[in-house]
């Protein structure tokens, strides 16, 4: 059931999973064009370190990759990673929905 949903998971749906506005925006920009980390940092009203941190979170989650080019770090979207994370969280959500159902069942015995 959960895995079947992956087939029609479009970009819009994936964006819903990206709850943090800045990170969502970073992924959107990286999809639309080519940006370096410093190029991205110039677009936001926050420190370079803060943007770098968001990029690191996205990279750790396998949602983007960084490619070194000269002195620049080019940010690229890792589409497989984005889909995988979404699928895993869907499965984890299903596990918790069932746990909640089992808890309700136990409480109903009182």
């Amino acid at each position, binding site marked *: *059931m959960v895995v079947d949903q992956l087939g029609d998971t479009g970009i819009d749906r994936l964006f819903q999973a990206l709850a943090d506005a800045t990170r969502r925006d970073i*992924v959107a920009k990286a999809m639309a064009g080519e940006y370096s980390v410093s190029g991205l940092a110039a677009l936001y009203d926050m420190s370079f370190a803060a943007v770098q941190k968001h990029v690191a979170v996205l990279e750790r989650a396998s949602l983007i990759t960084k490619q070194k080019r000269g002195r620049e770090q080019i940010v690229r979207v890792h589409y497989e990673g984005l889909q995988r994370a979404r699928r895993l969280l869907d499965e984890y959500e299903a596990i*918790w929905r069932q746990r909640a159902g089992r808890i*309700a069942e*136990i409480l109903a015995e009182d």
Partner: protein
Amino acid sequence: MTVISTQKDAAALSMTIVAEFDASVERVWRIWEDPRQLERWWGPPAYPATFEQHDFVPGGSASYYMTSPEGEKSRGWWRFTAIEAPNRLEFDDGFADDNGEPVAAMGTAHGVVTLEAVDGRTRMTVVSNFESAEQLEQMMAMGMEEGMKEAMGQIDAILADPALSR
């Protein structure tokens, strides 16, 4: 419905689920506090959880295993980083080897559970944070996914019964 809402952040590898139960906050707290009740709902029916240790105090540890239909055991551990009865608990959650020792390489998940009274019912919010997609994948591979599918029909029946799912 038991489950009110869920929210997933793929970029931060976090999942939030909000559920409401027809019981007091103190009663819902006991399904976490009492290991015999906890093991009735933590694992799916096909992969039941057995808690061998459940030291439910701040800084305390729990150790448990889940048994597959073939009889294979997968072990896990918790460390309670905060316990404020009956409203809040936080714990780290990881895999363990056959001796119950934490396997650091697989990473740690962090869970934050809050219970609050809402209109005579109890609202439970569980926020789970993972370190990596690999860790989450490993957790699914631990048998939960298989057990989940097997349990599906049974759970659907429970949720479809208004007397039980409220």
